[in-house]
């Protein structure tokens, strides 16, 4: 249960450590765009898995909310990179996030019923918390384009909302 958050955190710290060691190592806008988009895709995939597997109405409704919001954010992100003529650039953080997500998805596929619901929601709380931490301390401060920074700031508010929403659901399905 704690494996995936730790792996994700490690991935984010990797970039964070690099950035604090040397200012020049902070992620570039194309890398930030890639990380933010990847983080969204991960949560969309997790939501699709939950919609398919869960029998709990509250959990399925939550997953549908995640799907809808993250698709909307990623659409805005794609529109923005197109407008700015930026090509998102793959990087170690995106890859580590994707790897951790694949591990979590595999773990979830082995669970069912209440065990699945609890793990999905617990991971949603942990995942949003970590992405929010990365947005606040690394991605937003590193973004140089004002529009990208603004979209990340809106994203942070949405994800903070998701974290609280997930915490409410976690309390409900206890």
């Amino acid at each position, binding site marked *: 249960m704690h494996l995936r958050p730790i792996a994700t955190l490690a991935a984010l710290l990797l970039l964070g450590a690099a950035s604090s060691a040397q200012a020049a190592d902070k992620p570039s806008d194309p890398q930030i765009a890639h990380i933010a988009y990847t983080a969204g895709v991960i949560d969309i995939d997790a939501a699709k898995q939950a919609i398919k597997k869960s029998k709990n109405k509250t959990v399925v409704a939550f997953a549908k909310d995640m799907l809808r919001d993250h698709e909307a954010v990623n659409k805005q992100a794609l529109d923005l990179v197109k407008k700015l003529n930026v090509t998102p650039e793959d990087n170690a953080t995106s890859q580590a996030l994707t790897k951790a997500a694949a591990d979590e998805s595999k773990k979830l596929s082995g669970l069912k019923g209440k065990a699945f619901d609890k793990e999905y929601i617990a991971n949603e709380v942990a995942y949003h918390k970590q992405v929010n931490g990365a947005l606040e301390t690394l991605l937003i401060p590193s973004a140089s384009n004002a529009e990208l920074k603004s979209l990340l700031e809106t994203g942070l508010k949405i994800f*903070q*909302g998701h974290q*609280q929403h997930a915490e409410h659901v976690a309390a409900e399905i206890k």
Partner: protein
Amino acid sequence: MRMWKPLFAAAVLTLLSGAGAAAAATIEITIDKMAFAPVEIDAKVGDTVRWINKDAFVHTATVTGAWEVMLPQNKSGSMVMKTSGSVEYYCRFHPNMKGRIRVSP
């Protein structure tokens, strides 16, 4: 039949006089970038509160156990204030979005 004309005249006069003291107002709240603005409003019983959602995300204005207005992206929704008092509402999808309405009699 005889009642028609006076009634009509009264209706016209009411309209012309700005509907008098009982006129209900519509108070608008804008949602932009995950926030209600203004975050606090004052209203009177009978007033309509209208939320205009400028975000690309679905929001709600929800008072737990009382009422909820669903606010699809780039749409608006409204609610008539029926009871006096101060209520805190929030977005059920993003509980970090909060607002307050003070309704006076």
